[in-house]
């Protein structure tokens, strides 16, 4: 059941990770508590040196998952093994040490940098907090970092507003890399950038990953971007990973109907590549009241009675290809073909 691969060395093992939020609803006399399962019993492994892409629509829990792995939010349950130790048991000092090894790059380069700090201070703060370097040595390190991400080192005294969006995102990357971490969560790092700038930042991330041997969890909703940068890809839907495999498997022969539909709707740049679009009906249900059984069944063109009753588990259907679906697509089958041949309850 566990998507493990003996041939590779795991860096992070996530087991049954949960993040539940309670929300109050109902009126004054009729108070109710509802539980929203933002991350619902997710298990997977991140191997050393790989880039694991995480895709899904907004609200599927991909960012929450990233933050919970780093303990920027406290998970409600489960285990996260980093180098074989469960980091969810870490307290103060140990946790602070851990922060050196795990860092995050945020989506919005405008709000993630303190506008009153020079970028030298933004990056230098990392060294202050962890007592790495002081004075002239700190300044040198900051300049090295700026050079590493392709910024002019002499601009360390400039403020964030003096930089363009792409440059700010590089400052964010420099800050994340300042302490030489092993593991990086990149949470939609290029979504706020223009196309011509986006590719610059992607190239930088790919280069740094290679040069520094980083392991990266790359969270994004842009499928073309995720496909380009990731070694493996996980697809999330309503707090669960519904499919996980090597990038080519996911994109060339998706097994989950959701993945297949998602892929068919990506606007393709080249108009000569005509595809058969499968447009999903409806919207992602509210995570406060998810459907019974398979949570995707309400939108699934292949859903049957069994999907209502039983929750599918993440199973290895092909080598290293994990999917949680009762009726996954076979290798090379397209969703359209299956819809035609199987018929369905929903349509």
């Amino acid at each position: 059941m566990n998507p493990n691969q003996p041939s590779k060395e795991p860096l992070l093992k996530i087991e049954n990770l949960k993040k539940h939020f309670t929300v109050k609803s109902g009126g004054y006399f009729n108070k109710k508590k509802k539980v929203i399962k933002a991350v619902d019993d997710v298990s997977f492994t991140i191997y050393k040196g790989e880039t694991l892409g995480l895709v899904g629509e907004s609200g599927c829990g991909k960012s929450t998952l990233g933050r919970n792995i780093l303990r920027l939010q406290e998970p409600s349950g489960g285990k996260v093994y980093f180098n074989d130790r469960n980091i969810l048991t870490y307290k103060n000092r140990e946790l602070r040490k851990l922060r050196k090894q795990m860092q995050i790059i945020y989506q919005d380069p405008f709000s993630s940098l303190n506008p009153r700090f020079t970028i030298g201070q933004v990056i230098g703060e990392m060294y202050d907090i962890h007592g790495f370097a002081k004075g002239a040595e700190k300044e040198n390190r900051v300049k090295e970092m700026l050079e590493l991400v392709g910024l002019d080192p002499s601009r360390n005294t400039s403020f964030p507003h003096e930089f363009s969006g792409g440059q700010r995102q590089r400052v964010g990357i420099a800050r994340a890399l300042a302490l030489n971490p092993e593991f990086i969560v990149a949470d939609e790092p290029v979504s706020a950038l223009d196309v011509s700038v986006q590719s610059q930042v992607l190239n930088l991330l790919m280069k740094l990953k290679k040069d520094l041997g980083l392991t990266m969890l790359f969270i994004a909703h842009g499928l073309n971007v995720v496909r380009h940068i990731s070694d493996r890809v996980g697809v999330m839907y309503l707090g669960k990973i519904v499919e996980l495999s090597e990038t080519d498997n996911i994109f060339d022969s998706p097994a989950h109907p959701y993945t297949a539909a998602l892929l068919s709707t990506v606007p393709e740049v080249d108009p000569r590549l005509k595809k058969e679009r499968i447009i999903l009906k409806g919207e992602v249900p509210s995570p406060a009241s998810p459907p019974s059984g398979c949570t995707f069944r309400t939108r699934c063109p292949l859903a049957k009675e069994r999907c209502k009753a039983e929750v599918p588990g993440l199973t290895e259907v092909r080598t290293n290809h994990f999917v949680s679906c009762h009726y996954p697509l076979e290798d090379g089958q397209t969703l359209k073909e299956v819809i035609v041949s199987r018929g369905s309850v929903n349509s």
Partner: protein
Amino acid sequence: MSNKILEVKNLVTGYQGKDGFVKAVDGVSFDLEKGETICIVGESGSGKSVTSMSIMRLVEFENGKILDGQILFCGEELSKKSNEEMRQIRGSKISMIFQEPLTALNPVFTIGKQITEAILFHRSTGKKEAWQRAEELVRLVGISDPKQRLKQYPHELSGGMRQRVMIAIALASEPDLLIADEPTTALDVTIEAQILELLRSLREERGMSIMLITHDIGVAAEMAKRIIIMYAGKVMEVAETKDLFDQPLHPYSKGLLESVPRMAGERGVPLKSIIGSIPRLNEVPPGCRFSPRCPFATKKCNQQEPALETRGTRQVACWHVDELIEKDLLAINTEGGVPIES
């Protein structure tokens, strides 16, 4: 009159700044035929939204001004119309939908109230008929259970639903032209696909002309017959979608097309990119605006601004088009990107 529904000629729109007007749109010309979908593609600061706000004459409400040029809608000059006359045109002959459907809807009125308001403003019907019409519209844009939905407030609906409501309001008076400014940018891919499908069917069934503004070349390729590429307030290239993707004529179009990761491209290799970033509007470089970022720029490009010239069915603003075509330097080649160092 010809079958052109919209003709924009040499439009210049500026915003009042400290030292005079900053030109956000600087000499933009294009036209749109009846029943056609045209797409304006550009990055942030390219002036694509300001162009649409100028056509709707909404720039005046945000400190902007149309400084020069003509906007002909069905042969009528819009830029000279009074505010009252414009009010009659907005929403009835030209409608607009915006990027963020939450801020575009009024949070304190029900959906039904907001749709019927649009109907009652442009038509002399009774309230009852207006509600019936609202129901029809809501059904038309693919919202199930219309009676119930009309009683709901915007916050009770999801992003995709809100955008459908916006489209319903825009359609209330059966406009001839629909301007959609980044209608799917705030939405998820699966919902984006639904909204684009809806726009496509509206065009086919009602023969509506659509002007779509987007930063996503993929969306443009799927929706439009013709694409206008804008950069820093100027039109760089106008071409039929197919031609543009076969062979862009402007180095900027080429750069833009090459820097998007393709779904069928090779993975993990460095992507092509355009060096530098988009200039601020008050720091527009002299000569060709793209020249500081253009790999083919010469001295001439840095000094003189090229005009938008017609070449067969297409238009392009570049000094070196002929030379670049001859040397085959404009063909799209996504391979061999270099990771930038500075």
